[in-house]
Every structure is written in structure tokens, then in C-alpha cells.
């Protein structure tokens, strides 16, 4: 299967998958360029979607239609000689009529084709396409009795038709077919003419009512220019003039004239009509092949960008470099959901400390401490203040410890380490006062954070009954600064 066919299958798979490329066709795509990775995926997906036989069938249909039309034109060309030029009742060939019949329409048709080909935006081939589609559909029905065998047959047919006759290949395809059919017609006519001339004796004349003799002489001289250069015997000016009046020549001369006129007619048909069409047919055949060779799916389409996310994601690979040895232990160690004590009583013989309180929270804590305790409230915000607190605790006679924290801060292992260091310095119980600015019930994030504080406090061996949550004074929810049920013993 060549690259063009693989690209075509890729597009066929896009048609089948419509909006979302499937991620089922897994393969090691990482080391391949995107285009190669897509082709590899196409090979895999093709095993499931089976688009190649469908496309081959469409190709066959188009070739069949083209071949049938070719045959029709060949027959038409061949019969046109006997029907319109030479027949059993007529042993004379009007050279002017022969020209009009074969060369002039061919020439004008070429001009028209030229205009349409290079002025593609002026005209589109909508109706030619529609007409061709109808013919191909008809042919398909005749050829292919069951058209619904493949689930995506209609969609693939629409795509293939658009591909062959649409903007990418359409003009070349139509041009090729048009020139090819003209070739068939002219070839049929040439062979038929050769056959007629080989088996019949005809005389050549030219007849016209409205054109003058000079025009015809000029036209004939124009046609004879090339054969004369090639030393092919063609009618002289005198013989052309005789032909117009159908002058009677001697037998030898007459035969000589017939050969000359035959040479001119066959030469004109081959060189001025058939040859340009053959050349153009070949050119457009090559052009189609060239375009097919260069055919690539449009990888900027949303479908292919989605596909890129699948086969070449931004993240090439992910891996664990330094695994956590304690993870299973930590995962299994579930702390049951706990609640704080809404009516906590705090002992007066406890040492109050604050950890990482903001200015506002510190003021809230300070009001509580100043009202009930004589110890200065120290706020631990760095190593120096931590050492100061530990030192104060070591020298204090107070047995308990009251820790003020801000619910906005994240409880972490650093906090746990600090609490453990503090607990080593005291003999009594520890109390945790979590300060906040609003009730947690309305704020799921705060509620979760409160749970985090409760969990870590449990790890620090602080009893649930020794934890409370206090809303500060500034908040509008609590304008009087009520503390949720805290009492002092």
C-alpha cells in the first residue's frame, strides 16, 4: 500500500470516527513523528474499520464509469465517420465539413476548457459533480447490489467523491477525464477514417456558401504547413483550388490528389486534434499522480489535534522517582472524623502560645489571654521565636499548654514537630484554640481546614475535648465577638 492510499485511509478513518478519535488503538507512538504515528495508528484502525475495500470499490466504480464513457466515445467517433462523413451513398468527402466535425469543435472545446480550468473561481463544477454523482450512484446500484454492507458506506462515498472531484483533485480529474474521452472519440474517428479510406475510393472536395475561396485557401495552407515541413505529400494550392470546383483530373492525377487529401485529413486529425488531447491526457494523468503523491490530511483540523493529544500528549511519560516508603502506612492509618468542643473549659494554670497568627488573629488571641492570664502571649513565626517559647516553657511552672492557631494556616508536620517539642516541656494537658473569622458551616473549604486541624491535633495527642473554634470580633457574622461556648476554670 503506497503512502497516498495510507493517507486516504487515514482520512477515511477520520470520516468514520467523526468528531472524536478513538484512543483504543494503542502502540508505542512516542518515538515516531506525528505523521508516522498517525499512519501507524491508521494501520491498526484499518484492521477494525476495513475502509480499504470500500475505497477500492469506489475507485473501481469511477474507473468503470470512465471506461464505459471512453468506450461510448470511441464508438461515437468511429460511427460518426460513416454516419456524417462517408457513407455508401456518398463517395465524396467535403474537407470543410470534416474540419468542422472534428478539428474545429475540438479546438474550441480546448479553449473553453482552458478558460474554465484557469478561471476556476468563476465557475464551479457543482452540476457536473452532481451529474457524475448520479451516474456513479446508478452504476453502484447496478454493480453493487447491497450498498449497506459497510456501516459507514454513505459517509465514505461522500468523502471519496469529494476527494476525487472536489477542490484538491477535482479540476485535474475532470480535465483528465475530458481529454481522455476526447482522445477516445478522436481515436475512434481516426481508425474509422483509416479503415474507410483503406477500403473506399473517395474524392475530396470543399464546399461552402457563405465563405469565400481565399479563406478556405488560407485555412488549408495553414493546415499543410506542418506536413510540408515533414515532407508529407499534401494538396498544393492548385489542387485545393481544383477541389472547390470539383474539376475532373486524369486517373493518375486523381489518385495522387486523393492520397494528398487523405494525408492532410489524417495528419490534421492526428496532429491537430488527437495529439494535443493525448498530451493533455498524459499531463493530467501525471498531475493527478503528483497530487496524489503529495496528498496529506490536513493535520490542523480539530480531529487531528485531538488525535495528537492522544498519541503525542504533552506528557511523554510519567514515573515515580523516589517512592514514599511510608505511604501504605499513612494510607491505612485513618483518623476517625472528629469534632471540636463547643463548650471547652480552659485551665488558668496553662501557658498560652500562638503559632503563626496574623496580626488580626493575634489581637483576638491577645484579648483572651490578657483577660485571663498573666503570661505574655508569644507568637511563633520563626526559629528564633520558637526557641524563645521553648525556653519560656522550660522555665515556666504552669502545667498546661494552650495553643492558639489561625484556621487560615495549613497544619503541617512542622507544626506537629513544634507541638511535640512543647509537650515535652510541660506536665499537664494541651489545649488547641483555632481562631477564625466566620462560621465553618457556610464554607466547605474552612470546614475541611478545621477537620485538618482536628486531625493533626489528635496526632499531637490533644484530646478532642480540648479543642475549640473561636470566631474573632471583626467579622460581621459575630459583631459582638462571641466565643463559641468557651469557659475559663
Amino acid at each position, binding site marked *: 500500500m503506497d503512502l497516498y492510499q495510507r493517507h486516504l485511509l487515514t482520512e477515511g478513518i477520520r470520516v468514520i470516527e467523526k*468528531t472524536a478519535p478513538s484512543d483504543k488503538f494503542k502502540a508505542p507512538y512516542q518515538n515516531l513523528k506525528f505523521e508516522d504515528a498517525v499512519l501507524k495508528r491508521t494501520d491498526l484502525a484499518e484492521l477494525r474499520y476495513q475502509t480499504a475495500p470500500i475505497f477500492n470499490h469506489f475507485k473501481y466504480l469511477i474507473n468503470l464509469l470512465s471506461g464505459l464513457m471512453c468506450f461510448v466515445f470511441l464508438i461515437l467517433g468511429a460511427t460518426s465517420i460513416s454516419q456524417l462523413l462517408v457513407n455508401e451513398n456518398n463517395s465524396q468527402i467535403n474537407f470543410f465539413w470534416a474540419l468542422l466535425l472534428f478539428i474545429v469543435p475540438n479546438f474550441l472545446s480546448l479553449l473553453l476548457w482552458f478558460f474554465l480550468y484557469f478561471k476556476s473561481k468563476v465557475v464551479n463544477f457543482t452540476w457536473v459533480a452532481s*451529474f457524475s454523482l448520479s451516474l456513479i450512484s446508478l452504476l453502484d446500484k447496478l454493480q453493487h447490489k447491497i450498498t449497506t454492507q459497510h456501516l459507514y458506506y454513505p459517509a465514505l462515498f461522500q468523502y471519496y467523491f469529494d476527494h476525487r472531484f472536489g477542490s484538491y483533485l477535482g479540476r485535474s480529474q475532470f480535465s483528465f477525464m475530458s481529454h481522455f474521452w476526447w482522445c477516445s472519440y478522436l481515436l475512434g474517428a481516426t481508425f474509422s477514417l483509416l479503415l474507410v479510406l483503406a477500403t473506399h475510393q473517395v474524392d475530396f472536395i470543399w464546399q461552402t456558401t457563405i465563405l469565400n475561396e481565399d479563406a478556405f485557401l488560407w485555412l488549408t495552407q495553414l493546415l499543410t504547413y506542418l506536413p510540408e515541413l515533414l515532407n508529407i505529400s499534401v494538396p498544393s494550392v492548385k489542387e485545393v483550388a481544383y477541389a472547390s470546383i470539383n474539376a475532373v483530373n486524369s486517373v493518375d492525377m486523381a489518385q495522387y490528389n486523393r492520397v494528398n487529401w487523405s494525408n492532410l485529413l489524417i495528419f490534421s486529425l492526428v496532429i491537430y486534434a488527437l495529439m494535443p488531447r493525448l498530451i493533455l491526457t498524459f499531463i493530467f494523468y501525471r498531475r493527478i499522480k503528483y497530487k496524489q503523491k503529495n496528498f496529506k490530511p490536513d493535520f490542523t483540523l480539530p480531529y487531528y489535534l485531538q488525535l495528537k493529544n492522544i498519541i503525542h500528549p*504533552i506528557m511523554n511519560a510519567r*514515573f515515580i522517582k523516589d517512592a514514599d516508603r511510608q505511604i501504605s502506612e499513612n494510607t491505612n492509618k485513618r483518623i476517625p472524623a472528629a469534632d471540636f468542643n463547643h463548650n471547652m473549659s480552659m485551665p488558668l494554670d496553662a501557658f498560652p502560645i500562638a503559632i503563626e497568627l496574623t496580626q488580626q488573629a493575634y489581637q483576638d488571641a491577645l484579648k483572651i489571654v490578657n483577660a485571663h492570664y498573666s503570661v505574655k502571649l508569644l507568637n511563633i513565626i520563626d526559629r528564633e521565636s520558637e526557641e524563645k517559647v521553648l525556653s519560656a516553657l522550660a522555665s515556666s511552672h504552669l502545667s498546661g499548654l494552650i495553643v492558639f492557631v489561625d484556621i487560615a494556616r495549613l497544619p*503541617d*508536620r512542622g507544626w506537629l514537630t513544634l507541638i511535640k517539642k512543647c509537650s515535652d516541656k510541660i506536665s499537664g494537658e494541651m489545649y488547641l484554640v483555632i481562631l477564625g473569622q466566620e462560621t465553618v458551616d457556610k464554607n466547605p473549604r474552612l470546614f475541611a481546614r478545621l477537620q485538618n486541624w482536628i486531625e493533626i491535633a489528635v496526632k499531637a495527642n490533644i484530646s478532642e475535648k480540648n479543642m475549640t473554634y473561636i470566631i474573632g470580633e471583626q467579622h460581621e457574622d459575630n459583631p459582638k465577638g462571641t466565643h463559641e461556648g468557651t469557659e475559663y476554670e
Partner: protein
Amino acid sequence: MNKHLLSVAVVGHANTGKTSLIRTLLRDASFGDIADKAGTTRHVEGAEIRIDDNHNLVIYDTPGLEDSIHLLSLLDSDFAKLSSAGYEDGIDRLLAFIQREHEFPELDQEIKVLKALLSNDLIFYVIDVREPILGKYRDELKILSYAAKPIIPVLNFIEAGEANISVWQAQLARLNLHAFVSFDSVVFRFSDEMKIYQKMQSLLADYDLQLEALIQQRQLQWLQREKAAQQLIASLLVEVAACRFKAVNNEESIQQVSEQLQANVRLLESQTLTQLLTLYQFKQHDIDLYELPIQEGQWKLDLFSADNLQEFGIKATSNFVKGAGVGVAVDLVAAGMTLGAAAVVGGVAGVLWGVKQRYYDELQAKLKGHRYLCADDITLQVLWKRQLHLLSVLQQRGHASVNKMSIDGSALNETGLPKAWAKWLKSARQHPQWASLNESDQPLFTNKKSALIKEITEHLIQIVKLK
């Protein structure tokens, strides 16, 4: 793994958004675990970003530095005392500490971070700017400085912590960290991502070319994704505008067809939504979408619209040009008749053939008193504005966001309609074969449909540029 370009360790205090930053850079919401609590990330996890066939960038996510005060006190006391025995600088202290890691099981997470600091080329230090500057953060920075690696402080959550940014900048400047970047893993800006790579480029001169390639690649991906999204929106508009269903002229049939139309329009929008989400690598459950309100209009037969006449070759400036195209075919068939006659016959035949093919159903419907229902202008306007709003939301959503995206009605009124709006709709409605749901047996004529989609896409690109 053999071809990696450079490696970056993302470090910081717990819950500052290290994993979120990586998720956003990778556009992958499945990377690591995120939660609003400490100790969520416990492994050092790496992710490779492919730059080209030969180069990768590896980013390592690390556990949070939760106990920096304790760690620094050890490094500055126990390990500083050994300086006479050969521990001369920060790296030596860190190495000595790592060698004795078994003595400090409570610091196992921090030790992983220290190993990552020493084994990578660059450090991203992620800061949650909503937080006040505390001693533990200063200690973290001091520990990082021991590793003697280039550090890029990443100020995260800048939307919510805007008031603190200048304070953090001043603090970083005191530690000689002037090259920082701002980022928000919740409210994402592509320019911020680019600044991260550009800052890496300025700090790692040896990798300049590779990082430039990475920047180019990411910009290209971003633009391609944006354009593809705009194509999807344009395509949706064309498909929905072209979509129509035939109803017999009675209430029951109209009701039935209305429901069919609504279901199909919603299906089309849903398909586009899925595609947009996939394109931006989000999941369906990331969005909280209310149902599109759909009204039905009646499709009007416009046989003589300029657009259709052109289809038939009857263009004001080139009458029968299209017919002449058929004339070629007729020339071939006649093969010998005069060109003029063939072209005229071909032209007329072409037009007749076209009328039959294109309007047979419509004319038949007209005669039988049937009617065609299609989505009306208001529905299409709402659809259009919803998609624009969705695209804007998708482009600004970080992959670490956990809240659902919401396409509410309030934002929709702010967007005006393009000047060519009416022309687009008219063109789409005149080509029912463009709607895949209409199941037309006519050729797709994708050229013209593609041209219209391209025109709408270009308009969307202009809107983005103006923003």
C-alpha cells in the same frame, strides 16, 4: 530517558500548588494528587515533556517542605559543626545530611526534596502568595540556596493573593532572587506559562536553543488549538443553521419535528462541547452546563437567492457560466455539434438538472403543504455566544481547577454579533446538505461550506486579536 534535555524540580511548602503548576504545564489533570491539605504528594514523581525527537524536559513534583525550621536548624547546627572535617559549603551539608538520612525518619519527605534539589538542573520554588511571609518560608529559601542551583520563584495564586505580591517580591529581592514569575494555576494565562520558559532560557544559557524550540512548540500548539476550537464553533454554527426538518402541516407533526430538531441541535452542541473539552484536555464532568433554549423558525424557500443562482451558474456577472460547465459535458456527448448550441443546451440542462436536484423536495413539500422547521435566529445567537464564552473559559482554566466551569446566561449578553452574521446564516440555511443530520444525497460541496467556516473562523481570530 536517555535523550532528556534538562530536568526541573518543583519544590515549595506544602499546599502551595506544586502539583497544580505541573498539571497546568502538562495540560493533564490526572497528574499527581491535589487536595487542600498538607502531605498530599508523597512521592517524587517525574513527567517528560517532549520537545522534539531528541529532546525532553523532565519536571519532578516533590513533597512539600513542611518542617523547614527543624531541617535548617539541623543543617546549621549538627552539620555546620562538621565543617572542620571537610563540610565546607551548603552542598556538602546537604550531602552529609542525605548520607545520614536514616537518623532522621521524621524528615523523610524533606530528604526527598533535598535529593531532588541536588539532582536536577533547575529549581522552581512555588510560593502561595496568599500566605504571609513566615519564618519557615525564609528557612526554605535558605535551604534551597545550599543546593547552589538556579532558582525560579513561581508566585502562584496571584489572582487571589494580589495584595501580597509586592511583599513577596521584596522578600525575594532580599535573598537575591530577582528573576521570579507570576502564575495562577486556577486562573490560567498562556503568557504566564511562556514567561516561565523564557525565564528558564535566561537562567540556562547552555540550553537556549532547546528552550527556544520548546517555546516555539508550545506557542504553535496553543495557536493550533485555538484555531481548531474556532473552527469547531464556526462549523457548529453552520451545521445548526443548515439543519432543518420537514413537518406535515398539523400540530402533532410540528410538535414531533420540533422535538426532533431540538434534540438534534442539542446533540450537535454537545458534540462540539465534547470536542472542545477534548481539545483543551478537560473532562466532561468539568463543566456545569444548562440546557440550550431552542426556538424553531420556519425555513423559507428562496429559490432565487443570489447564492443559489450562482449554484446554478446564473451569476449576475457571468450568466450561464455554470451551465457552460455542463456544456462541456454536453459537448462531449454531442461530440460534433456546434459549441454554442451545446453550451446553451448544456446550460439550460444544467440549470434544470440543478433545480430538480436541489429543490425537488422543497417544491414537493410546498405543493403538499408541508413545512420545514429550523433553528431560529435567537437560538443561533445564544448558541454562538455560549460557544464564545465557553472558549474563553476553557482558555483561562488551569488543569488544577477543581470547581466546575459554568456557562451562565449573564456573560452572554456582553458579546455582540458580527456584521456578517445575517449573511452567514442565510448562506448556511440555503444549503441544507451541509448539515450532516439532514442526510442529503447531493454532493457535499465542501468547498463552499469550508469557505464559510473559514470566513467565520477568521472573524473569531480577529475577535481574539482585539481582546
